[in-house]
């Protein structure tokens, strides 16, 4: 119930404090008891909403009609030979059902909505959101109506959609199928349909010929559950900062682009990693924006290559901020810092220690760099003459030579400044 309450609150629902569980009676082999415990008249949460970002870039508000608890049923697997298998392992496990208002208009909207719900469920620590394992199931109810009419058409329900892509494709297919049926003068039958991946089309699974009488009555084995205000407020206070709030904060306070803010807020753990790093950025002499850039451009690349999530890496937020601080203080340059980060990622060693033990500290000593430049110019008289004759491109050659001599540690700005002085002397 506490998890359910978290979700209902995160979806902006009005909370019913008085919760009654009901028995829903029906005969089907997926129910070992012959009835399902559910919430019927008074769902935990009602009248909520969720803002969903569509591919077009616009934000759409999807109404949440109800959020209620019930128990999961067994999993039926229909085999090609006409037999069916029942897996009761998940039967009786608490299940949360979230029902939207009829606000979704396309397969892509359905997918965007479902992904946003999954993101929130993960943020709340309620569900892993793994559709292939069936711990998150999305069952779109689809109907068609002529533009401008208020009454909804007969709906079909799609079940057993095991990915967000199939959710989008199945919904799109069903919209097209129903449109074709209606345009050819046919009628849509109310039924449950499945998705055939090979044929990439929906097919009829179960037709409800008449409305079933579920004979709902109050569940006699579960007394009414009253959630008092203190409990609801305690759960509300324990909710983590949710993605939309986080993104807005990143953009407003840290001046991140919307894209960067979204990337960092996509998963709760990444956002929290970033927040921790930011909290130490000022002391290390760097900025949230730099931290964001380093995470998105460098750290995520290393994580992708190693196929590691942020909770599995050896680099700590403190270490990354220290590394960026070394760059800001010009102890090392950018390219060196990338090498150091790779080393940190591989071994977990602190950046200062890597710089120290490998002698990577940037040379910012005028005299030392001047000496190397003098040496490079003396060793390459031919290139110096060609440069002086107008082959400006050779300037890069001299910089390269200086960097090679210093193993890349020379402060690039200083090299440029001193080289120009020497060549133009």
């Amino acid at each position, binding site marked *: 119930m506490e998890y359910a309450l978290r979700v209902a609150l995160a979806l902006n629902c009005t909370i019913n404090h008085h919760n009654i569980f009901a028995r829903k009676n029906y*005969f089907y082999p997926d129910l070992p008891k*012959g009835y399902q415990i559910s919430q019927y008249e008074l769902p935990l949460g009602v009248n909520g909403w969720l803002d969903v970002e569509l591919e077009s870039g616009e934000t759409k508000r999807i109404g949440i009609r109800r959020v209620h608890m019930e128990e999961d049923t067994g999993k039926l697997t229909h085999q090609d030979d006409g037999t069916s298998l029942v897996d009761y392992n998940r039967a009786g496990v608490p299940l949360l059902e979230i029902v939207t208002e009829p606000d979704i208009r396309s397969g892509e909207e359905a997918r965007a909505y479902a992904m946003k719900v999954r993101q929130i469920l993960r943020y709340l620590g309620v569900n892993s959101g793994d559709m292939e394992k069936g711990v998150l199931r999305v069952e779109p109810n689809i109907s068609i109506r002529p533009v401008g009419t208020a009454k909804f058409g007969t709906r079909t329900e799609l079940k057993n959609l095991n990915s967000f892509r199939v959710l989008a494709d199945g919904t799109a297919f069903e919209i097209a199928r129903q449109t074709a049926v209606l345009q050819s003068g046919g009628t849509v039958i109310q039924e449950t349909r499945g998705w055939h991946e090979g044929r990439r089309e929906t097919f009829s699974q179960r037709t409800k010929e008449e409305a079933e*009488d579920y*004979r*709902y009555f109050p569940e006699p084995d*579960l*007394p009414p559950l009253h959630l008092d205000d203190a409990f609801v407020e305690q759960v509300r206070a324990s909710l983590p900062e949710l993605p939309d709030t986080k993104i807005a904060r990143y953009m407003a306070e840290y001046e991140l682009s919307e894209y960067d803010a979204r990337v960092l807020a996509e998963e709760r753990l990444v956002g929290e990693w970033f927040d921790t790093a930011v909290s130490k950025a000022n002391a290390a002499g760097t900025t949230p924006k730099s931290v964001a850039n380093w995470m998105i451009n460098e750290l995520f690349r290393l994580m992708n290559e190693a196929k590691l999530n942020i909770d599995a890496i050896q680099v700590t937020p403190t270490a990354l901020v220290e590394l960026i601080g070394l760059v800001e203080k010009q102890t090392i340059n950018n390219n060196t810092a990338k090498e150091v980060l790779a080393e940190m990622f591989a071994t977990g060693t602190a950046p200062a220690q890597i710089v120290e033990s490998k002698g990577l500290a940037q040379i910012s000593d005028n005299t030392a760099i001047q000496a190397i430049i003098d040496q490079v110019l003396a060793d390459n008289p031919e290139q110096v003459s060609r440069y002086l004759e107008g082959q400006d491109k050779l300037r890069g050659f001299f910089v390269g030579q200086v960097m090679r001599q210093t193993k890349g540690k020379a402060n690039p700005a200083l090299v440029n400044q001193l080289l120009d002085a020497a060549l133009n002397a």
Partner: protein
Amino acid sequence: MDISKLSLVELRAMLRRGEISSVAATEAMLDRIVDVDNDLQSYLTLTDELALEQAQAADTRLANGDSTPLLGVPVAVKDIICTEGVPTTAGSKILEGFVPPYDAFVVQKLKAAGAVILGKTNTDEFAMGSSTENSAYVTTRNPWDHERVPGGSSGGSAAAVAAGLAYAALGTDTGGSVRQPASFCGIAGLRPTYGRISRWGVIAFASTLDQVGTFGRTVADTTALFQAIAGHDPNDSTSLNVPVPNFEAALTGDIKGLRVGVPKEYFIEGIDAEVETAVRRAIAKLEELGAEIVEISLPHTSYALPVYYLIAPAEASANLARYDGIRFGPRVTGSDMIDSVKKTRALFGPEVKRRIMLGTYALSAGYYDEYYGRALKVRTLLKQDFLNAFEKVDVIATPTSPTTAFKIGENVDDPLAMYLQDIFTLSVNLSASCGLSVPCGFDSKGLPIGLQLIGNALQEATILNAAYAYEQFASWHKQLPVHGKL
């Protein structure tokens, strides 16, 4: 000394003093079961080997001075309560051969208390009945007159205790199924407050009314068994998480100043005159013992029966939906799955089928408000009757049953006459009070009569002490059925 005539409390004291062994007591019970139970038919399953093992283990512990509450005491368990590794049928063919993989909470408690479990006793199918005639296996006979029923549904447990085939026994009481057979068999039977005892592992009939109860030949014996099984169980959401008082210590026999209410609605036309006389005489004795007698009214009493026969069947219709031959008990194979389920469910007896149909109807669309929904509302009024009464009195005294034990076959063709057996007991279940039956005399046929004492929620100690005081004074419990009548 006839070991089988000892009370539980006497036996327990002798076991602790080493004057008798648990093995000897257990063997005495088993021997007597062999002698008597072919006629009486109180047990469906005997667990004699297991019982002797438990008795031997108890004797070892007793020898070491172990004083676990029921250590070494042989008891019986109604066959609607799950016992690990021991068949549990609920008196139904549909559970024939079902062997539970776990013990009900109350059986766990019994074992923890050191009790020796002799076997499983007969019951009306799924506890639906008042005579054990609805058992799919046997009809138990009344130890006082073998032509007559022992009452029900827990008739097997009541008969076994009355006949000296167990020192105490567990029953269940959904509408009177402990108190009415206790009354018919001349023993004490307690139906505790709903939630006082866990229902986990008790095969469900009507979930808001079911409660495990206890039988003993004396009030003290009944109390000792109750003490051992009461308590909170997190596996049952309706189990009350409240302290369990020391009920045995509460049996002081002092009822001076106890306010005893006598509801006028319970002395109605149709009540057997000898029953009324005996009950009124018992109430007079309570007054002699220092109680104050107050006439009270429970105005909604006449609605208890219709309310009960809407609510209990409605809950049963859902609770019994799981018996489809797929997971428990026998399966009758048909042409396809639905056909198999239909044929398997034909194994239910007629009374169970009747109640499933009644309940399904009462819950169906278009009838819910008129039947089930209205029954819930009237149930609230009935509860209010009792709450109002318990502002004025501590205990309510009534007959347990309008008659004494009836003849086998007398009511089988008349369900309504059978339902009327529970007219005085149903309200306790509907109102979440607690109640007990204690012997208060015999009719001219020599059949026991029961006095029902009803207490407010969680006031078991009050009614047990009142019954104990009366019992000490009246001593009906000292009369035992004569084996020769069987």
